[in-house]
């Protein structure tokens, strides 16, 4: 059995104004779980990227602004040195695996500002899995292990 398992449902506007609150919330969980500040920041960034992607892409085409709201479900499972964060949304699915590794120099040449989010999530988390489950929405599973040297 996992040591701790908790679930939250956050209902936020379908714009990026509340991302700071999501980051604060996740940073608290990571700190409580015993991660060092450097890893707390990485987890915070990975979740921020995931939520920004959901807001900007999964709900694209829908009414934007503060009046429109979206629901993000978070399930956090702490098991020993392992923290698993599952973010579920019910927007348009995304082909996560089709995103190729980023060539930063080519991004600069093309003056591209987008497309770094998945690269960042993969760099900062130990395991990443994305799947769309019929009737259950899109699930992004982010896993991070507490490094021994921080213990």
């Amino acid at each position, binding site marked *: 059995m996992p040591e701790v398992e908790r679930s939250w449902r956050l209902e936020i506007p379908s714009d990026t104004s509340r991302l700071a609150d999501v980051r604060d919330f996740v940073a608290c969980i990571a700190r409580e779980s015993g991660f060092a500040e450097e890893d707390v920041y990485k987890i915070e960034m990975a979740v921020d990227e995931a939520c*920004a992607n959901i807001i900007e892409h999964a709900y694209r085409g829908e009414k934007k602004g503060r009046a429109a709201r979206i629901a993000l479900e978070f399930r956090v499972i702490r098991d020993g040195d392992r923290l698993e964060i599952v973010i579920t949304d019910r927007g348009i699915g995304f082909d996560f695996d089709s995103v190729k590794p980023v060539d930063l120099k080519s991004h600069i040449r093309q003056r591209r500002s987008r497309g770094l989010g998945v*690269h960042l999530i993969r760099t900062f988390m130990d395991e990443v899995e994305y799947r769309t489950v019929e009737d259950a929405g899109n699930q992004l599973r982010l896993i991070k292990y507490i490094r021994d040297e921080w213990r």
Partner: protein
Amino acid sequence: MAKIDISTRDGPSGTVILKVGGSLDAHTVPKFESALRELIEKGKCKIIVDFARLDYISSAGLGVFMSVIDDTRGKGGDIKLVNLTDKIYKIFELLGFDQLFQIFKSESEAVAAF
């Protein structure tokens, strides 16, 4: 809600210092991008960005630097970064951004590098 503070002032030797504080995330990045592009449009392309009071940067923030850096370099300028906190410097290093941008400990070192 994320907050961002931006201020600019002219520095020595034709440089301009752009100070950014607070959070540079998907919500606040349009304001920062406008400030940066406005400088470039005015021909102020030797830009030093001071990160001393920046607490957070997301990929949207990093992306802005990537999309405008060649515009400044093409006009004989550059974007040099100073006063990064240890936390943000580490992120730059892990993502390989320290290979793409010149990072200095102080404004005077960045000015001297132009």
